[in-house]
């Protein structure tokens, strides 16, 4: 499935980026986590950010959401400066996030979790969207009345993605969706992301440790090292670079 994607990527509008991070510097107290990062995500694109632990991948994703805020630089979404907006207002621009560690609501049922995802729309097309989620993730349908906390890790990840999709996002940001999941489940989740991108033109910004799968799926990729982008380019090209293979794919390439 991913191979067909690479041969025929979805059409990408490259004129003005949907999301544009310009020289973002983020600090935790006095410690600098992002040392001026530039990242562009165009409409209809899957962009992957890879990097080692502590490189600042999640920080970049959180900075886009305004928590913590970038102390310097600019973050533009559809040309609008969102650098200093509060997190919930950013989410209202239809930037949906499936955060690191899934963060589903453990005591609420699967259906209620999905309802929370649609909180912005006041449930206008709730039924329709729930059906769509169940088509994408049939497993969730079996678990519909079950509490989120009782789901398996893979199901929780599916729920987190479905919950983010319930907001009908213009930009979907996924933070390590493959974390702690079996390869088969990872493949399922990546297949769904690829399918959504191809069929609906969904724009995805993906942060991953699983560099092989992520770069294979992505139109373009960025490599983050110690808070700076050291490399960028089409996903397939990055995959073939020896330094990437050495650093991120040691034994991971099949």
């Amino acid at each position, binding site marked *: 499935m991913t191979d067909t994607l690479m041969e025929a990527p979805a059409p990408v509008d490259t004129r003005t980026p949907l999301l544009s991070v310009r020289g973002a510097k983020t600090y935790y107290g006095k410690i600098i986590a992002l040392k001026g990062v530039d990242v562009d995500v165009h409409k209809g694109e899957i962009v992957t950010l890879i990097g080692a632990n502590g490189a600042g991948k999640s920080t970049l994703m959180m900075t886009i*959401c305004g*928590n913590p805020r970038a102390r310097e630089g600019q973050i533009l979404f559809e040309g609008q400066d969102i650098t200093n907006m*509060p*997190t*919930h*207002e950013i*989410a*209202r621009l239809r930037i*949906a*996030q499936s*955060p690191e560690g899934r*963060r*589903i*609501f*453990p*005591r*609420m*049922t699967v*259906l*209620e979790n999905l*309802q*929370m*995802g649609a*909180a*912005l729309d*006041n*449930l206008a097309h709730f*039924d329709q969207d*729930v*059906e*769509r989620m*169940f*088509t994408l993730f049939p497993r969730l*349908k079996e678990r*519909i*009345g079950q*509490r989120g906390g009782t789901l398996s890790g893979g199901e929780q990840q599916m729920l987190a993605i479905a*919950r983010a999709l319930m*907001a009908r996002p213009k930009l979907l940001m996924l933070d390590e969706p493959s974390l702690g999941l079996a390869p088969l489940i990872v493949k399922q989740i990546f297949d769904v992301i690829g399918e959504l991108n191809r*069929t*609906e033109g969904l724009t995805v910004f993906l942060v991953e440790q699983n560099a092989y799968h992520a770069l294979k799926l992505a139109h373009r990729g960025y490599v983050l090292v110690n808070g700076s982008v050291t490399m960028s380019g089409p996903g397939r090209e990055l995959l073939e670079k020896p330094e990437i293979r050495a650093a991120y794919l040691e034994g991971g390439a099949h």
Partner: protein
Amino acid sequence: MTSDATVTKHGPDIPAAVKDAVLAGVIALGIFGPLVGLKTEQNMSNELVITTRWGLVAVIVGIVMAGRFLLTTFIWPTIAVRKQRDKAPPSAGRLAFLASFKKWFPSGSLVFLFLYPAIVVYLLGFQGSLKWVDNFGIQILIYVMLGWGLNIVVGLAGLLDLGYVAFYAVGAYSYALLATHFGLSFWLLLPMAGILAALWGIMLGFPVLRLRGDYLAIVTLAFGEIIRLVLINFRELTNGSAGISSIPKITFFGIWSFDVSAPNNFAKVWGLAMSSAYYKIFLYYLILLLALLTAFVTLRLRKLPIGRAWEALREDEIACRSLGINTTNTKLTAFALGAMFGGFAGSFFAARQGFVSPESFVFMESAVIVAIVVLGGMGSMIGVALAAVAMIGGTELLRELSFLKAVFGDNFDPDQFRMLFFGLAMVLIMIWRPRGFVSAREPTVFLTERKAISGSLVKEGHG
């Protein structure tokens, strides 16, 4: 001296149990003999005299022996049998009984609550009903209402508020001051007290928005104390520790009064014998309706976006924000609504007592209300009501401990043991039901029949 020693297949081993009990008695004698049996007292000429209390020691040793005997012959075997039984899956009949109990319990208890004064009056007459309607009925219902109000903040929104009594105080003093100074009626001041308390809730809410868990608990605790200290020290307004007395009674919507001297006194109008029972019964129904209003509003809100946002906030604040929920507003509405119901209850409290002083709003009150919410099971309405009945009804029942005087002698003060029993009961409940009486959470949405059918439709068009 282990429990299995006396648990055999053919029933308890009596001789071994007797031996065990005697041994426990000897130990008790060794401990309590010198501690309780001997007492030094000062006589008139300032000399220490030893007085002995062997009777009391005998009673204590007797209790220990009997307790030990019961424990080994009866209680431990029963627990062992129950443990065996719990391992087996519950039978179908038991499940059906539990299901129907769950279905009928809320409406059944509601009917009982509405009939309660009538039953008590029928059984004990008007005069005899006073204690049962007032001390048990009204007192418990006030705490049910407070519990349900705090349940919004603690149970639903997950914000641990240890200063809830502050809003209760705001409501009580709003009514007390405005009614005594301006002669405004209860029915006007009830919503006003609620609004004022809600404003204080927002005022507390703003500084603590960024806090959670322990830190929030400390700040709210301090807030409760600040309100109480202001009430004590702002003498010009609140009359300090002396409190405000002769707060007017509630009228029956202005039609009938319950003042003895008023021309439109309820008993006079209806030609009944004078009794304070009518007023108490009226108050009972009033607080019942106020409590039900709290429950109704909470149950409705749970199904609205704001209620869902509260519950989501309790689960995960960061996830909430990433889903576009304004956590500031969500927290503030929880604080304001919880405080509003506290204010309602407070103004009712002031009218019922006819007197308010800062004494009524000590930290202990907040702790009791939080305990009710936690023991009941965070977020469960029925559980909170049951916990209020157990905690408040229980402590009221413990006033009836005077029979212990027959055992421990006349200078024994059973009231001092109320808190001991209270604490013991809380520890036991937390051991048996660590998540509260009702720990299950009712989902707010279900998949209906219609949706289930449409769910079997295959793929729909994308794009």
